[in-house]
């Protein structure tokens, strides 16, 4: 069967990025970030169970600027994945599947994730 002349669907590089497609891949990407962060969470409980010295050593790494940036990124990913996960569950139930619902909920998810991240870190810092 000749396959070289068949029509192709638009490639990702040609297609203009839309809110819906960008948020879709972001859900997957934040899932990977959260999985990596889970390793840190497991290490954190192990450090906590290993006594004060081990815990302080863990905190020294975590409070390094790179560690703090990683934690802020991780919480942002957490809130995004949480809110967009609710959006996905609503879609699974058959709601918000029209263009208007998909866009409105998309903007809500992004705004909500940023606000909740800011609020949580405000709560931690004060």
């Amino acid at each position, binding site marked *: 069967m000749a396959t070289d002349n068949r029509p192709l669907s638009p490639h990702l590089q040609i297609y203009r990025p839309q809110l819906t497609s960008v948020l879709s891949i972001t859900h997957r990407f934040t*899932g990977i970030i959260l*999985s990596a962060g*889970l390793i840190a*969470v497991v290490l954190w*409980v*192990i450090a906590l*169970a290993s006594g004060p010295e081990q815990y302080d050593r863990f905190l020294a790494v975590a409070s390094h600027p790179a560690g703090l940036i990683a934690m802020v990124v991780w919480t942002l990913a957490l809130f995004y994945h*949480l809110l967009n996960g609710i959006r996905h569950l609503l879609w699974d139930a058959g709601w918000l599947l029209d263009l208007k619902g998909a866009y409105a909920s998309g903007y809500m998810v992004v705004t909500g994730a940023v606000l909740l991240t800011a609020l*949580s870190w405000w709560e931690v810092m004060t």
Partner: protein
Amino acid sequence: MKFRNPLATARNHGSAGDGVEHWWAQRFSAIVMLVLAAWVVYALVSVIGATHAEASSFLAQPFNAALAILFLATSLYHSRLGLQVVIEDYIHHRGLELALVLLVKVGALVGGVLAVVAILNIAFGA
């Protein structure tokens, strides 16, 4: 138009033969974490920046220890289901794909056991 034979429809397993279970497990674990979400945010905010004594006395409370174990187990499970799909979608070498999926499954299991033992250790003050 209907292309699927009656037996396939009766079995209701979709085109791949399986996968429905995986799909449901991903949603079910998501809903469990959704129920725990408020506690998780409260726990993160309480524990980030806390001293060893503060963090361990927080996790030592039976309610917090139980929810921490429940959440970590569920999130590791959800994470391994999600990473499996990512690997299956993007890794096109069958051997590497199987090896990575196995690695993720074993990693989630080992991480879960380590975390649960650590939390019980803190909770029972060993």
